[in-house]
């Protein structure tokens, strides 16, 4: 038996680590990965609340988040490849200009 609040605190920890990684990481792929970590933390919250209120909708929400995350990963990584072709660097500080 585990209190739901434990799950919520765990999700909060993961989300905060994701935020910190998002701000500190300089590699664009690593930045992207920290976004995925944050999404996962939110998913955990959804499933914990689905269990709390015995509602399927929380899990449905996670399902949609996964679908969107998959689409986002495909497009995002394609953008990263395109950026790398143009700049030949992955450091976010060197790709902050809007034009080539």
């Amino acid at each position, binding site marked *: 038996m585990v209190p739901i609040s434990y799950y919520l605190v765990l999700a*909060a920890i993961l989300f905060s680590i994701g935020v910190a990684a998002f701000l500190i990481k300089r590699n664009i792929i690593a930045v992207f990965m920290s976004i995925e*970590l944050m999404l996962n933390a939110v998913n955990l919250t959804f499933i914990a609340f689905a269990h709390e209120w015995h509602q399927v909708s929380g899990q449905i929400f996670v399902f949609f988040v996964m679908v969107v995350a998959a689409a986002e990963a495909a497009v995002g990584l394609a953008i990263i490849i395109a950026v790398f072709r143009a700049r030949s660097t992955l450091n976010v500080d060197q790709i902050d200009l809007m034009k080539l």
Partner: protein
Amino acid sequence: MHLALFFIFGALCVAGALNLLLQRHPINSALSLIVVMSSLAVLYLLLGAEFLAAAQVIVYSGAIMVLFTFVIMLLNAGKEERTHGSKMAYVAGFPGAAILLGLLTFIFVSRRGSFGQARLGEYVVTTADLSRVLFKDLLLPFEVTSVLILIAILGAVALARKEH
């Protein structure tokens, strides 16, 4: 039993996430993220979301993260260098994240009386339950996401192709 499993896999999650934060090499970060996602799948199973646990492993660990490692290998991304701009991030990043963590934890702990307990096997959503809601009540959003994925495929192909 439930508590022990929660602590083991929760600790794995946190350790993986911290490793993601601290590792310099993107492939190590990607691997620690895979550890986080797989342990989260176990936590989903503990919370009775069996289809989502499987989907987490198949979609996140098996597809999305494979794409990440694929791109890391393809672009041969090396150790990340810390540039000038990241000093700001250190100043703002760690305190901001710490404040966020403190706030969220404070709220969850102070309001813990209003949350219930999770028991193993008390509330299990089978794949049939999930699909019944998904294909009856939420058919339109489901179809819209399929269109979204189609657009994402087209966009990815258009973005990543080489121009001749």
